[in-house]
């Protein structure tokens, strides 16, 4: 769990800072002339909480954690360590896959919360340095449009993405065959599969969580 969570944090924070900053710059560009710039904070907060935080964190972790799981289990497979577990009557699924699945499912929402905070702060850096906004203006906008439902729906996405990353890493790692080359292949497949599934499920979840009646 600490490997999944704490280990991924520096990279996730780096990504989040820039996500928030870029969102602020481009929100200002899009709002210019239509909406007063003091609403930049709202736009950053909304887009980060419901979409950018969960999805970008999942893509980063899919690459980092999903690959690590696939490579580790793949190596255990080709060096017969998984067979060895089985011969000792230790069920490999419960012993190897379940803890990883739980770790990614629990930890992804946790690091997404960090990413959300950092991204909103990143947006503030741009707002204060580029648009000369006060902290009061920016965070007032963040606060006024905040809805708990956005946060929890975003974190629901994260938990699903975390499950996907754990499952894909385990699935491809477990099915590895053919030595070092096989481990490399399994790792790549795990990353590709988790990234594609994250994007597809993002769409499905968006429909379930944020459907607007019209």
């Amino acid at each position, binding site marked *: 769990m600490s490997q999944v969570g704490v280990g991924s944090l520096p990279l996730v924070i780096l990504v989040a800072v820039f996500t928030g900053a870029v969102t602020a710059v481009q929100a200002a560009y899009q709002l210019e002339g239509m909406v007063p710039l003091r609403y930049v904070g709202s736009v950053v907060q909304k887009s980060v909480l419901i979409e950018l935080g969960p999805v970008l964190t999942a893509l980063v972790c899919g690459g980092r954690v999903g690959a690590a799981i696939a490579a580790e289990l793949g190596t*255990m497979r080709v*060096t*017969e*360590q998984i*067979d*060895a577990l*089985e*011969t*000792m*009557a*230790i*069920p490999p699924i419960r012993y190897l896959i379940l803890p990883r699945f739980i770790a990614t499912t629990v930890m992804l929402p946790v690091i997404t919360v960090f990413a959300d905070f950092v991204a909103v702060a990143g947006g503030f850096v741009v707002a204060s340095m580029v648009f000369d906004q006060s902290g009061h203006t920016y965070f007032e906008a963040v606060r006024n449009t905040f809805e708990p439902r956005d946060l929890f729906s975003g974190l629901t996405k994260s938990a699903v993405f975390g499950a996907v990353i754990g499952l894909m890493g385990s699935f491809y790692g477990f099915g590895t065959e053919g030595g070092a080359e096989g481990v490399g292949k399994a790792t790549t497949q795990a990353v590709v599969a988790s990234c594609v599934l994250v994007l597809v499920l993002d769409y499905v979840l968006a429909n379930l969580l944020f459907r607007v009646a019209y």
Partner: protein
Amino acid sequence: MSAVAPPARAVVVRARGLVKRFGARAVLDGVDLDVHAGETVVLLGRSGTGKSVFLKHAIGLLKADSGTLEVLGTDVTSADADTWNRVRRDVAMVFQAGALFDSMTVGENIALGLHHQRRFTAGEIAAKVEHALAVVGLAGTTAQRPSSLSGGMRKRVGIARAIALQPRLLLYDEPTSGLDPVTSDVINRLIRRLQRDLGASALVVSHDMTSARFVGDRIAMLDEGKMIFDGTAGAIDHAVDPRVRRFVEGRSDEMLDEAAPAGGS
């Protein structure tokens, strides 16, 4: 634990007409083999003849396509996971490269199976780990990582992990392959000594004639998925089958030359 075998010796492994296909190729093509209680049988054969595949059937890592297989009196031909896990309490396998868990220390490797059986206290397990390591001559290595060990030491830790579970049947996959002759001899003597001290039966897969003669009470030989020899170590020297003769004497004869002329024209 008696050294004297009972008059009607129990059979610990009995295979009849075992067939296993990978794709179209029958790796095991109707194999018959018995291993009796207290006996060490060496399964010989060239690379790719299905020896290791047979071994993996005996501990449920592979499932036969047809034929029957009994292990320690249980029919495991189409056994489910629960049945296998019961049988596996009394069967242990020593893997070719050790298959040690590299995220754990040597001691944790050996303790894992014992922990999982939930029959022993932590103190008993620690004592069993120390004892198993002492038996293979690696006392005091408990805290080391498998990655810091040599190939021969890793195999010995693998053996310690297997015997710590006090199995009635030991399966060895190529115990001497990839080792220098001196280390091979250490392993051979260890296998022999374990058989004497534990009274466990053993099935050893190998392509090492020296090892086979030393550890085997009986030698069986596989070729292209079929059993072509089954007898004592002495009898294999008088075998008439040319395939057995070639293996014993270590000759390729014309096999390669005929198959692919080196010059090509």
